[in-house]
């Protein structure tokens, strides 16, 4: 049971944020996600075998960072809504409070670690009774019968805790890129040529827009559409080129995204 993997991989999103902000002295929103991903992949490569827990934790961290960045970077029509402004501050203060908590215990852990190391230098005497007194000791099996032994065996062989996947961080919105692709295949031939902005103007949730965008990329990859962006920051034009003969058989492989 290799329950401890020693790597310098960050222990969680808070740990990562603390490191980035305190040690690297950077603005969270300046960090290139690609850099973090690269650093992680290097660490994971160093591991003898793939540890599912560490890799999933990494995905969680990456997702958290993407979420934080998205909150800042995606267009928001209510940019100047005071309530939103306040809730952003509130959210930030909450995050800072949690980061401070995290840092407090990180530092406390160092002290525990030192105590552990010092205590490990001393080995307790455990020899116990010598044979002169062993007979005196009460029979430990007094009152234990064979059914107790059987019960103890079953207890010992029963997993203590069923490992579960935490879904705390998953919101209830669930949009599938596959579904979005199907919708687009239905809509796009009718438009022929349409801007991404126009295509998504009816959508409210940011996640839906993002999923739409991923679906567009997927269709581009499969050759159903051409993309054109005449100017920087300009609208993305989507041009339908796919022939009806092309099937959408490959869509089964497209992931569902949880927001």
């Amino acid at each position, binding site marked *: 049971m290799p329950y*401890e*993997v020693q790597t310098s991989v960050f*222990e*969680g*999103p*808070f*740990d990562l944020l603390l490191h*980035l*902000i*305190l040690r690297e002295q950077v*603005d*969270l*929103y*300046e960090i*290139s996600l690609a850099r973090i991903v690269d650093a992680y992949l290097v660490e994971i490569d160093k591991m003898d075998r793939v540890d599912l*827990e560490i890799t999933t*934790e990494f995905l969680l961290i990456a997702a958290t960072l993407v979420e934080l*960045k998205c909150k*800042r*970077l995606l*267009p928001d029509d209510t940019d100047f809504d005071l309530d939103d*402004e306040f809730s*952003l*501050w509130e959210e*930030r203060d909450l*995050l*800072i409070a*949690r980061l*401070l908590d995290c840092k*407090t*215990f*990180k530092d*406390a852990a160092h002290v*525990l670690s030192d*105590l*552990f190391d*010092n*205590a490990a*230098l*001393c*080995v*307790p*005497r455990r*020899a*116990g009774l010598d044979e002169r*007194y062993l007979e005196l000791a009460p029979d430990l099996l007094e009152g234990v019968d064979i059914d107790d032994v059987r019960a103890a065996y079953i207890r010992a062989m029963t997993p*203590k*805790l069923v490992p*579960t996947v*935490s879904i*705390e961080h998953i919101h209830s919105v669930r949009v599938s890129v596959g579904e979005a692709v199907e919708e687009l295949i239905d809509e796009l031939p009718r438009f022929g040529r349409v801007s*991404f*902005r126009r295509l998504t103007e009816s959508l409210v949730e940011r996640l839906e827009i993002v999923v739409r965008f991923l679906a567009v*990329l997927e269709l*581009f990859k499969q050759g159903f559409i051409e*993309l*054109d*962006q005449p100017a920087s*920051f300009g609208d*993305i034009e989507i041009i339908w080129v796919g022939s009806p003969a092309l099937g959408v058989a490959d869509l089964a492989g497209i992931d569902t995204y949880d927001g």
Partner: protein
Amino acid sequence: MSADNKRALEAIIMVADTPVPTEMLSQLTSLAADRVDALLAELAGEYAAEQRGFQLVRVAGGWRYQSHPDQAPYIEQFVLEGQSAKLSAAALETLAIVAYKQPISRAQIASIRGVSVDSVVRTLEQRGYIGEVARDPGPGQAVMFGTTPEFLMKMGLDSLSQLPSIADFVPGADVVEALEIGLRVDSAEAELRFAEEALAEGSQSVRPSLGDLLDGDGKG
């Protein structure tokens, strides 16, 4: 006679395989508990003065003999088995949270650490450092964890009160300030820089998205 009493205490602790609580020693020797502790402190002092290779110490509320820390190199050669693997940073942090915030539930630990702590908690439980000490009376009846006597023994502490105060670890104003700057809400500049970076990186035809998405008010 205090010499006789000391001899009895030495003998009992020598044959015990776990720390012997003061109360038990007091009962066996018919001495007051504080008298027992005083005599044992005297003995511990004698061993120290005689530069013995062992110590008499009080851990987890009881007295035990242990090897002197400066003899660790010899002991390490001798005791190969039973050396427990070092705890990971995650385990130590979780242990610190439990030690200072007990009783505490798994969910509460997770919310402080920001990640799922199931496996780390299980590891600490298996090692015997933490255990269920209560149930949350609220709905769900979550298991509340606390540290065990085994934890105190591993830390060489007599009681939890010997842990340094948590106040010593609360981050200073500089950290708070750094966090506030790092997470500042108003950062239009950064947004701009990010957008530029994305454009510089990106091949326009395939990934025209970022520039577009970033551009809030649609001006080219």
